[in-house]
Every structure is written in structure tokens, then in C-alpha cells.
């Protein structure tokens, strides 16, 4: 009986055990390195199932939590934190998409305002269709102190780029986005004057091998001013 306790790793990682089994398996974990390692990985995996449920909570939740935190003392540490830093890696493109989620409402505002699209829903639907494309490829990179995420779909021949956290471009100046195909730049949209970030949807993405950002006069330019502020390989 006790020798098949390892098989509880799956139910345990899913919290699908009762309290007794949980206690029993907790004790087992303290002595079985292979189960401890496996459970850690299965928990990370289960967490990805949680990622897919993300919903913006009501603002009052934050107020309530912070108010309670302010009057709640912290428990003492059970033990000194161990030194070794765990390195958890997520290589999948979907994880990279969380970078867009993190930008959140700000990006939504840019999509709506800067694109001067009257129908925000239509715009969002366009973004959705690109993100949902089965062949969507996500690239992300640091750029001039900011961050850029580019999603391209060859089948739709469209892409969406989200740029955030660039330095203030200055009054009367703007950042312009470029798709670069074999060293030839192609306009992928101009961010708002003075804006340090934004999102743009663009088409004709086939053959693009780089994504670049240039610093221009407000309204943009026909060809990018070089050197570029930065670029990301696609």
C-alpha cells in the first residue's frame, strides 16, 4: 500500500486529495526527492491552467486586501530561506504573451486612441484574430530601456506590436515602428506624439526578419532616421 504512494503525485499537485492524504503525502515529500521534484514541476504545470483563467478583479478587492494586510501581522519564518535560486523557465510563445497582458489597460487605450479606430471592438477583434491564429509567432525583447512584443501570423499576413516603457520622445516627436525585410524598412505605424509606448496592428508581414523602432518627428517619416532606437529579430 505505502509503496504506491508515489502515484499520489498527480492528485496531490491538483489538490484532488483529502486532508489525510495530503498530510501523508507531505510527509512522503520530505523523504522522497524524486516525488518532491516531480510535484514541483506538476504544480508549475497546474499553475499554467490557472494562467488561462485570468480576470480583472473588481477594484474593491484591492482595497479590501490592502486594508486587511495593513492590520495583519506576518507569521514568523518557519526556517531561514534557502540560498539557491530556482530558475524556472517558460519557453513557450504563449508565456511570452503574458508580456502583453502585463501591459494591460494602457495598451488597450493606445490601440483605441492612436489608431483612431472608431470601433474599439473591431480593433480588439483584429488583435484577437492575430493572437488566435494557429501559426501566431511571438517575439519579445528589451529595447532602449523599454520592452517590445511582436506577434505575427503568416497565414493572416498581419501582425500586432506592443511597445512600452521607451524614454520620453520629447515634444513634437514620436516613435515609429518598422518591419524590416532584407534591410528594407516598411512602415508599421507611428505612435502618438510624445507617447513612450503603444500598440499597432499592421499587415504585409511576410518576409519580415526584423522589427525596429525609430525616433521621428510627430506623424512619422517615409524612411527611418538612423540609427534606429532599437530592433528585435523576428
Amino acid at each position, binding site marked *: 500500500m505505502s509503496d504506491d504512494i508515489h*502515484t*499520489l*503525485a*498527480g*492528485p496531490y499537485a491538483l*489538490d*484532488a*486529495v483529502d486532508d489525510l492524504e495530503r498530510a501523508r503525502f507531505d510527509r512522503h515529500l520530505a523523504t522522497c526527492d524524486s516525488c*518532491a521534484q516531480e510535484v514541483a*514541476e506538476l*504544480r508549475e*504545470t*497546474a499553475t*499554467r*491552467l490557472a*494562467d*488561462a*483563467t*485570468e*480576470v*480583472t*478583479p*473588481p477594484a474593491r*478587492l*484591492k482595497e479590501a486586501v*490592502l486594508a*486587511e*494586510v495593513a492590520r495583519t*501581522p506576518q*507569521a514568523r519564518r*518557519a526556517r531561514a*530561506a*534557502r540560498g*539557491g*535560486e*530556482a*530558475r*524556472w*523557465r517558460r*519557453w*513557450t510563445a504563449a*508565456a*511570452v*504573451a503574458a508580456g502583453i497582458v502585463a501591459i494591460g*489597460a494602457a495598451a*488597450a487605450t493606445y490601440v483605441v486612441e492612436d489608431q483612431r479606430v472608431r470601433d474599439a471592438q473591431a480593433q480588439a477583434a483584429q488583435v*484577437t484574430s492575430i*493572437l*488566435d491564429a494557429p501559426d*501566431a*509567432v511571438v*517575439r*519579445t*525583447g528589451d529595447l532602449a530601456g523599454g520592452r517590445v512584443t511582436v*506577434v505575427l501570423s503568416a497565414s493572416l499576413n498581419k501582425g500586432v506590436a506592443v511597445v512600452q516603457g521607451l524614454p520620453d520622445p520629447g515634444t513634437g516627436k514620436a516613435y515609429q515602428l518598422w518591419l524590416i525585410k532584407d534591410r528594407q524598412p516598411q512602415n508599421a505605424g507611428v505612435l502618438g506624439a510624445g507617447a513612450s509606448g503603444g*500598440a499597432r496592428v499592421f499587415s504585409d508581414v511576410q518576409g519580415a526578419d526584423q522589427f525596429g523602432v525609430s525616433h521621428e518627428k510627430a506623424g512619422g517619416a517615409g524612411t527611418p532616421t538612423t540609427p534606429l*532606437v*532599437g*530592433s*528585435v529579430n523576428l
Partner: protein
Amino acid sequence: MAARDDQPRPLAPAPATGDLLTQVARGDEAAFVKLYDELAPRVYGLCRRIVRDPAQAEEVAQEALVEVWRTAGRYDPAKGSASAWVLTIAHRRAVDRVRAEQASTDRERRVATEEVPYDDVVEQATARLERQQVRRCLQGLTDLQREAITLAYYRGYSYREVADLLGAGLPTVKTRMRDGLIRLRDCLGVSFA
């Protein structure tokens, strides 16, 4: 400022979240606010998925997030990512709540209330990419693996209940949960480097 990234790469959040949690463990309330902003949408979303009732989900999310504050000192980075640690707390609390409610017959009624509404269309769009990846990987499982995992994780059923619901043996369900998660892990590219 030449080209720097030519590969899909891991995002900063994993280590950054761990650092935040370490600061929270030292009583840093400002760090807790940042941690809240990063993780509350997932904590709340998960609670809503499992508990269903919005008011109760909010309660459970609040309990879980305060527990994160209270017990942050117990987080051990060697054992996993900070987000997994936080979401495990939230998941357990949500499952405990739904099981406590189980006797009451309205669980099934609540289950009938499907997907939760989103406030923000673009957020919805981006969350969908994540969901799609998860869904694609779930589709790669056998029916029994997929049903066992989703009934347990999203609805809070124990493996015994899952076995009942699916008319399968206990050893089979335990094994399918484990090998299903392993297949999911490989598909999603979750690894312990």
C-alpha cells in the same frame, strides 16, 4: 542598440515575482502592492472558475491574498516559482470552499453559470492566446487524462469523486492525473532548469 532577441525568451516575471515575494516576506507593503497587481487577476480568475459565485470568489481571493502576505516568509524559491506558490494557496482555498459547499445542492446550479465576463477586450484577447495554448495542450491528452485533470483543477473534485464521475477505477484516475500532467508539462514547456 542592435538586435538583441532572436528567440522566444522567458519573461522576467518569474524571477521578478520571486524577488517581490522575498521583499513581502520582510514586511514591505509596497512590494505587496506590486505583487497584488501582478497576481490578483490570476488569483481572482482561478477563484471565480472554481467557486463560480462572484461574491464568494471575491471572499476566497481576499483570504488567499492575505494569506500570501501573512506567510510569505515560508516561500522557498528552491521549490518552485513564486506565482506557483501563490496560485497553490489560492487553489487550495478555493477547493476547500467549494468542497465545504458541496453538500448544498446549489453547486450544480452555479456550475451552470459559464464563463466569467471580462472588463477589458484587449486583455481578453491576450488571455485568449494563453488559453489557446493551454487548450491545445489539453487536446493532446487522452479523454480520460483531460477530464480527470480539468474536473480536479477547475472544479475542485477529489480523485475519488473524479473516479465516480468518470466510472473509472481509483488507481487508473490517480495514474491518469499524473501522466496527464506530465504530458501537459512537456507540451507547455514547463521545466525546472
